């Protein structure tokens, strides 16, 4: 059983999933930031492998990617980061990146190195199931979960195709759009979760646009198995660029608040 499967089968409440842009603002500070989020109790850590031209990301994560790249972050440095985090925790780690980063390195090599570093799953937002043959095969070979996104406008007939390939959990995109914190609750999320639930035994985690404890509580109450927060966490890193201690302190407080909200909503 994978670490992600074990986590969801052992949890009696939704999982709190935290996203950080790997290498932001520099690889060393990034490690401290990830450790702070782990210490705060996040159940799964998503680490973004930065790319110069991501399509699906909003301005907050694009700025983080640019900072990381400017500081010399490469896939090699991200694997080092995963190794360093893994050394101190058994929390599941998921890498998220653009397909080209994986393709250029060599799909098989990327998954092998990711697995050796201690990664548990991979999310590639611009890789629909139609293009996922090599990646899904490599994920299977090295024991990683290939996680797929389901969009608000995904047609019924595509769901089967996605579910055929998906592992770990389903990443349900809550709003039509790109990543970025928003206020308010996504419309009809409860019905969407219920509809998906009837089709799959995979855990369903909701992400995109979720910015604080209020929304986390509501999404947990709507029946999600996990709640993913990204841009709001990345914004805290950005707020404290010159002060690592203050950054880590606020990250801990914020993520602990999210984890508390997940429990409240369950």
């Amino acid at each position, binding site marked *: 059983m994978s670490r992600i499967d074990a986590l969801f089968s052992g949890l009696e409440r939704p999982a709190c999933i935290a996203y950080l842009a790997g290498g932001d603002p520099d690889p060393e500070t990034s490690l401290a930031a990830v450790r702070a989020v782990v210490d705060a109790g996040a159940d799964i850590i998503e680490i973004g492998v930065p790319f110069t031209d991501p399509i699906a990301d909003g301005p907050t994560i694009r700025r983080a990617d640019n900072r990381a790249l400017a500081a010399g972050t490469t896939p090699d440095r991200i694997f080092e980061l995963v190794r360093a985090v893994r050394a101190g925790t058994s929390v599941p780690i998921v890498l998220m990146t653009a397909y080209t980063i994986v393709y250029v390195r060599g799909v098989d090599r990327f998954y092998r190195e990711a697995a050796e570093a201690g990664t548990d799953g991979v999310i590639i937002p611009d890789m*629909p199931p139609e293009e996922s043959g090599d990646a899904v095969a490599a994920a299977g070979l090295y024991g990683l979960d290939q996680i797929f996104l389901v969009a608000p406008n995904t047609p019924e007939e595509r769901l089967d195709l996605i579910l055929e390939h998906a592992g770990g959990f389903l990443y349900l995109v809550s709003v039509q759009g790109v990543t970025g914190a928003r206020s308010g609750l996504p419309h009809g999320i409860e019905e969407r979760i219920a509809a998906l639930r009837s089709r799959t035994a995979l855990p369903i985690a909701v992400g995109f646009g979720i910015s604080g404890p209020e929304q986390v509580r509501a999404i947990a109450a709507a029946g999600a198995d996990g709640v993913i927060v990204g841009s709001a966490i990345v914004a805290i890193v950005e707020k404290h660029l010159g002060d690592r201690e203050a950054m880590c302190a606020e990250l801990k407080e914020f993520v602990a608040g999210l984890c508390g909200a997940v429990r409240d909503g369950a």
Partner: protein
Amino acid sequence: MKKGYFGEFGGQFVPETLMGELGALETAYERAKNDPAFQAELEGYLSTFAGRETPLTYCRNLSCDLGCRIYLKREDLLHGGAHKINNTLGQALLARHMGKSRIIAETGAGQHGVATAIAGAALGLPVEVYMGEVDMARQRLNVFRMELLGATVHPVRTGSRTLKDAVSEALRDWIVRPAETYYLLGSAVGPHPYPTMVRDFQCVIGQEMREQVLKVEGRLPTAVVACVGGGSNAIGTFYPLLGDDDVRLVGVEAGGEGLSTGKHGATLCAGTKGVLQGSLSYLLQDRDGQILDTHSVSAGLDYPGVGPEHSMLKDIGRAEYVAVTDDEALAAFSLLSRREGIIPALESSHAVAYAVKMAKDLDEDDIIVVTLSGRGDKDVVEVAARMGVTI
């Protein structure tokens, strides 16, 4: 061949949010392609509005100077000043057939933005255009033309603030409002079905040219030459000639300040395989897959990717791809203006420059046809500034 692929190139590398939309677009396009009423409507717009067919012009003076027979396929004479209108009229008609209420587009040099604004105005669909700030500064005239035509121009301030960033921003707009939006992509790039659809709309260039040259010369040309940024005018020129094995197909990329300087846009000459903005193709990228900044005197060629079908034609050796520098393109810009009375777009000047180079190795009865993708009015201010002339 896998659907949406040219050899190993192409595909649909986009977020899940767009997959349903791409499926709907593919279905609508297939229907339109086989619908005589749609094709008749398009042909009507092309002939009575855009100005087809365009002439094939024999360059008397240049042919005499260079010692072979040189022709130009005159896409510069189309309404709007470039080949772009062939594609925008086709896609705008498709958008109307699909019941979309708004059109978005990206533009580099501004020609595609202008052509989209023209098609939107003619067909009664509102148009919003994304354009990098750097490109807006060097193509102010086209920004003004788009606004005159009723389009809204959104400045893009991210990344290198050029065409690739405008494409990314347009894709993000589409992700946010897919149901009512038609994304009118300007070149033979992006996810399937765009590379095929844009090629089909641009094939009229090669089809007309092939018939015209057979009519006036009684034989096919030795070589056809076209500039390649994303590659829409080049694939439209090449495609109807792919089966004519004796015709050399030459694509000319932006050599910028020289391939060895790293400041260029010569994707096929110097790139490696990767995925950008929806398809797998050759790209200008570093060893980790990060996209490199590009440079060209011509905003329309300043793009780190290229259409996937060109990548296949390069790999199978059916087309050859070369680069000419900014300086060579500028020299050709002046040469064609002075010797033939035709001011070419800076993009097309790259093709003219390579035709001049090629001519040295050809005989007097060899025929070169250069696709003049657009006219140079839009570039006059930029060229004057480079020549130290204040207008």
